[in-house]
C-alpha cells in the first residue's frame, strides 16, 4: 500500500468505492507518513489522529451498510485544513500566540459542508500568522519548509496546506487567499491552488484578515480535485451576507480536455522587470503549448496593475486593523499576566500575543483609517480598486481567461526576505490584482527551474466563471503531460 499516499481525491474515491482500501487505512497510512516526514517540513500544527480515525471508521461502517451515495466522491477522503478555519471542538490558532487556549465552539460553514460529504478532517496546517505573509515564516510556531527543497520557503500564507499536499501528507487541503495566499504557495510547492471568485464560497468561520478580499479555496494535486472540492464548499450561506446564491460551477462543462477556439490573454504588465527569466520562459512556453492545442493567444493590457500593491496593502491592512481588534484578552485566547488595568491588559496582551508582521500591518491599517487620512488612503485605494476591476472586465470581454505568472520568482531561501517587509509585499504584485477585482484565479504547475523548483502558471477568469479556469487548467494538464512525454522528460 505504498502508493496510497500519492493518491488524488478522485483515485482515492474510486479505491474506497471499489473496496480496495478503507478510509481508516487511508488515514493510518497518512498519519504514518506525516510522523515520518513532517518533522523536516513542518506543515501541520495539529494532527487530529484520534478524531480522524473515528470519522474514517464511521464512514467505513456507513459504506459497508450501503449508506454512502456513490455520487459523493469525497466520503472517507482525508483532507487537511488551514488553521484559520474554525472546527468545532478544535483549537484554531491562526499560527498566533494570541489564540492560545482557544477551542472553537462551532464549525466554519466550509468545514460543515465537507463534514456533510463525509470528508475526514485530518489536521490543521501551518500558515503565516493570521494569513499575513507570503512565506509561512511568520508563524508563531514553526517555519514550513518547501518539500522540493527544504532550505526554501513553502510560500504563504497557506504554506502548510500546500506543503502537506506536495509532500503527499494530505490528499488535498483547504487554504485561504486574501492576496495570493492559495495561489502563491501552490506555485512554490507544485500544487494546484484555486482562489474562487469573492462571494462564491462562505467566509463564515474563516478568521477574518481582510473581509472584502478573503476567500477559502482548495489546494490539490490536480484540477479535477480542485473542481470536486470547490463544488462541495461553494454556495450561499445565510451566515455570510457576502456569499452569493449561485449554482456551483458545472464540473462536466469544465472538465473537458479541449482548448480549441478559445482566446487566452497574456497581460503585458505581468511580465515585469526583475522577473526570474526561467519563470517568464515557463509561462510563455505554457502559452505556446495552449496555442498549439488550439487556443488563440493575444496580448492584453491591465493598465492599473502598478497600483495594485499599494491599494491592496491599504485596504487589507485597514480591514485587518479592525478585524484583529477583537483579540484583546477578554473573552478567549491569551491574556498577558501584566494586566494591572484595562489599558495594560489590552496593550500587553496584544504586544505579547502578536508577531512583528501582524503588528506592522495593524499599525499601517490603523494609520490609513485614522482621522484626516481616510480619503487620502482608504477611499483612494477603493477607487483604484474600481479601476483595476474595470481593467479585468475589459480584458474578459475579449478573452475567455488570462495566463500569467503567479509570482516573479520560484521559492526563495528561508530568511532571504525577512528583513525587508516592503520587498516581501512587492512579491505579491501578480496575485493581488485578482483579489482586488474579486475574480477567480488558479495556480497550476507549468514547469521547473534548473534547480528543480516548481513554477506555477496563473489562470485568471471572470468573476463567477470558475468553469473557464477549470477548463483551461484541466486541458493544460494534459497538454503539458503530452509535451513532457514527447521530450522524454518533465518540462
Amino acid at each position, binding site marked *: 500500500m505504498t502508493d496510497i499516499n500519492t493518491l488524488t481525491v478522485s483515485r482515492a474515491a474510486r479505491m474506497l468505492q471499489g473496496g480496495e482500501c478503507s478510509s481508516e487505512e487511508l488515514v493510518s497510512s497518512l498519519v504514518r507518513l506525516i510522523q515520518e516526514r513532517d518533522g523536516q517540513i513542518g506543515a501541520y500544527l495539529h494532527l487530529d489522529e484520534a478524531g480522524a480515525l473515528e470519522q474514517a471508521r464511521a464512514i467505513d461502517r456507513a459504506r459497508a451498510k450501503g449508506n454512502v451515495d456513490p455520487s459523493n466522491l469525497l466520503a472517507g477522503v482525508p483532507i487537511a485544513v488551514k488553521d484559520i478555519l474554525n472546527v468545532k471542538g478544535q483549537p484554531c490558532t491562526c499560527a498566533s500566540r494570541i489564540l492560545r487556549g482557544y477551542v472553537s465552539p462551532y464549525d466554519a460553514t466550509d468545514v460543515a459542508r465537507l463534514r456533510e460529504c463525509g470528508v475526514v478532517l485530518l489536521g490543521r496546517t501551518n500558515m503565516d500568522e493570521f494569513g499575513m505573509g507570503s512565506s509561512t515564516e511568520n508563524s508563531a510556531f514553526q517555519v514550513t519548509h518547501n518539500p522540493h527543497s527544504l532550505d526554501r520557503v513553502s510560500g504563504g500564507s497557506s504554506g502548510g496546506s500546500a506543503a502537506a499536499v506536495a509532500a503527499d501528507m494530505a490528499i488535498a487541503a483547504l487554504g485561504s487567499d486574501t492576496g495570493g495566499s492559495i495561489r502563491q504557495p501552490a506555485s512554490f510547492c507544485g500544487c494546484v491552488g484555486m482562489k474562487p471568485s469573492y462571494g462564491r464560497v462562505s467566509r463564515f468561520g474563516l478568521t477574518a484578515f481582510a473581509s*472584502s478580499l478573503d476567500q477559502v479555496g482548495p489546494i490539490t494535486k490536480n484540477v479535477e480535485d480542485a473542481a470536486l472540492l470547490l463544488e462541495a464548499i461553494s454556495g450561499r450561506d445565510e451566515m455570510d451576507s*457576502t456569499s452569493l446564491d449561485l449554482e456551483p460551477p458545472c464540473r462536466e462543462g469544465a472538465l473537458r480536455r479541449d482548448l480549441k477556439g478559445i482566446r487566452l490573454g497574456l497581460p503585458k504588465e505581468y511580465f515585469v522587470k526583475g522577473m526570474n527569466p526561467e519563470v517568464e520562459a515557463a509561462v510563455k512556453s505554457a502559452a505556446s503549448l495552449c496555442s498549439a492545442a488550439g487556443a488563440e493567444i493575444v496580448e492584453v493590457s491591465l493598465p*492599473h496593475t502598478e497600483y495594485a500593491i499599494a491599494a491592496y496593502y491599504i485596504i487589507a491592512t485597514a480591514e485587518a486593523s479592525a478585524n484583529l481588534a477583537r483579540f484583546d484578552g477578554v473573552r478567549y485566547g491569551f491574556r498577558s499576566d501584566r494586566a494591572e488595568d484595562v489599558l495594560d491588559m489590552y496593550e500587553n496582551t*496584544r504586544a505579547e500575543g502578536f508577531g512583528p508582521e501582524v503588528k506592522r500591518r495593524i499599525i499601517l491599517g490603523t494609520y*490609513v483609517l485614522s482621522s484626516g487620512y481616510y480619503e487620502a488612503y482608504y477611499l483612494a485605494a477603493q*477607487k483604484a480598486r*474600481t479601476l483595476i476591476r474595470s481593467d479585468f472586465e475589459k480584458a474578459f470581454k475579449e478573452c475567455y481567461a488570462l495566463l500569467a505568472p503567479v509570482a516573479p520568482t520560484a521559492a526563495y531561501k528561508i530568511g532571504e526576505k525577512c528583513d525587508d517587509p516592503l520587498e516581501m509585499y512587492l512579491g505579491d504584485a501578480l496575485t493581488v490584482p485578482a483579489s482586488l477585482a474579486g475574480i477567480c484565479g488558479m495556480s497550476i504547475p507549468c514547469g521547473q527551474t534548473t534547480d528543480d523548483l516548481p513554477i506555477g502558471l496563473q489562470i485568471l477568469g471572470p*468573476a463567477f466563471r470558475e468553469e473557464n479556469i477549470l477548463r483551461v487548467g484541466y486541458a493544460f494538464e494534459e497538454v503539458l503531460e503530452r509535451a513532457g512525454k514527447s521530450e522524454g522528460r518533465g518540462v
Partner: protein
Amino acid sequence: MMDVAGEKNIDVAYVAHLARLRLSEEETAVFQKQLEGIVGYVNKVREIDTTGVEPTAHGRSVQNVFREDMAREGLTTEEVLRNAPAQRDGLFVVPKIVE
C-alpha cells in the same frame, strides 16, 4: 519620506497606542523606519486620477441581504466561559474599569 507638510508621514508611537499595541523603544524605531518606507510606497494610490471614479467596497455588489427576525438558541454560559481567560460568577472578568 516626508509628506506635503514636511513632517514624518506616520507617527508609529501614536498609531500603536490607538491600536492598543505596546511597543518597546527598539520596536518603535524599527517600525518607524519600515513603515515610513511602506507608507511612502502606498502613497502611489494618491497619484491616480480618480475623478468620477466610484469606490469599490466589495468584490461583488449585491444589496439588502436581510435575516428574518427569529430567535435561536446560542451557546450555553458554560461553553463560552470555558474559553475565558478569567471568569467568575457567570461573568467575564477584567481588571477594574475606572470611568
